[in-house]
């Protein structure tokens, strides 16, 4: 067989396409769920780390450090294979979403913390002097400014989470990578793998370009 028939086999591709598309759907929803949950968790932990009483703030810090140190694959396997021993049996999707969220939350927390700390002290003082309470100070003054600072690194983190969804194939989740390997075995041809790789690139390339643009744009906004 020639090169083209081996790696870019049209017949194999059309046969495998339904499987690949269903895998793509799972990958996208796993990524979306983990990214959103990670954002909420990360913001919460960042606020604890910055403003909670010392013991709680310390716990937030330990959380951040632990989940930035643990390899996601290890965490995923612990969640999927070890938790059932204490009676917690999660589906492959939930296991993967949990592992990705826990890790993404730790990175997101650090991004939010840096964003909030980048806001000058005068903004807090002006809010205090006007009599704004903590909640309004955060919601109306600090967070809207911090968001601008954190958007580029947050987008970068989204890319990482999206890529890491592929790890879920090791706990038998029918994501894009898993379906591609399955189709490859079925067809005895690597074309589905090449197609899957192309799909990952097609999703993530625009995001990568977006990060570059956002970084350029917000660097200007922040520095003025």
């Amino acid at each position, binding site marked *: 067989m020639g090169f083209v028939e081996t790696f870019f086999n049209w017949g194999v591709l059309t046969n495998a396409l339904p499987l690949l598309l269903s895998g793509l759907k799972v990958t996208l929803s796993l990524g979306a769920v983990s990214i959103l949950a990670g954002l909420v968790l990360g913001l919460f932990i960042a606020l604890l780390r910055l403003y909670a009483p010392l013991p709680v703030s310390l716990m937030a810090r330990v959380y951040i450090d632990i989940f930035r140190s643990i390899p996601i694959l290890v965490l995923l396997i612990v969640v999927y294979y070890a938790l059932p021993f204490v009676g917690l049996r999660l589906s492959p999707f939930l296991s993967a979403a949990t592992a990705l969220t826990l890790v993404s939350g730790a990175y997101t927390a650090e991004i939010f913390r840096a964003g909030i700390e980048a806001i000058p002290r*005068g903004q807090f*003082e*002006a809010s205090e*002097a*006007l009599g704004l*309470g903590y909640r*309004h100070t955060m919601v109306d003054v600090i967070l809207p400014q911090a968001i601008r600072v954190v958007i580029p690194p947050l987008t970068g983190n989204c890319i990482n989470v999206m890529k890491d969804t592929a790890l879920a194939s090791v706990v038998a989740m029918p994501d894009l990578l898993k379906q591609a390997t399955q189709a490859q075995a079925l067809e005895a041809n690597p074309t589905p793998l090449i197609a899957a790789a192309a799909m990952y690139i097609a999703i993530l390339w625009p995001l990568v370009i977006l990060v570059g643009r956002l970084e350029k744009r917000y660097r200007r906004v922040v520095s003025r």
Partner: protein
Amino acid sequence: MKPVISIRGVSRRFGEFKAIDNIDLDINEGEVVCIIGPSGSGKSTLIRCINLLETFDEGGEIAVDGIGVERGPALASVRAEVGMVFQSFNLFPHLSVRENIMLAPMRVRKLAKPEADERAMQLMRRVGIEAEADKYPDQLSGGQQQRVAIARALAMEPKILLFDEPTSALDPEMVGEVLDVMKALAHTGVTMLVVTHEMGFARQVADRVVFMDAGRIVEFGTPEQVFTAPRETRTRNFLDAILSH
């Protein structure tokens, strides 16, 4: 007359260094008081204690309109009565001029949006920035920004206004427009406490002048007395140094 701000035995230590040292001061309602003195003499620290942006050492007492200034539920009502204008403006950069002025009345005073907007409009006219209502702070000159900051503080209808070196960060040609707004305010009956290096303003507008040095109040009297017949050598030396050129 009953003092609207009463400061008793207030100190603020940073380690060994005393930023302010056992200050007593009464400010009467409607009075305009300027605080002058060399850099590092504790002027800013003193007025920042009044709305507790700076904490002061135990044993001291500050009361604003009879309410003790301390951490707790009463602090919000003190801060609602005390407006502050900062050296570096501290406008909210993500909000337009109008929104900067409307925010606190809506969130703290619970004003409805149309009322807050109308109050903002009146204040913008009063400080002469109504043409910039929908611009953002970084599109304004320093003088315009500081006038917005004054309008923002006024929007809470405070009894007391604190000014922390309001013209020190301005280009010289913009100092006048801000001082003019402050002069106009002085005649409205609001109590003003102004930390400043503008001796002309202090002399012309203040009812009383405080001279501070090394964390203490050295002299406190009418502008006439402090500027033309200072009792203390330190006051005289300071005035000689800055008025000689």
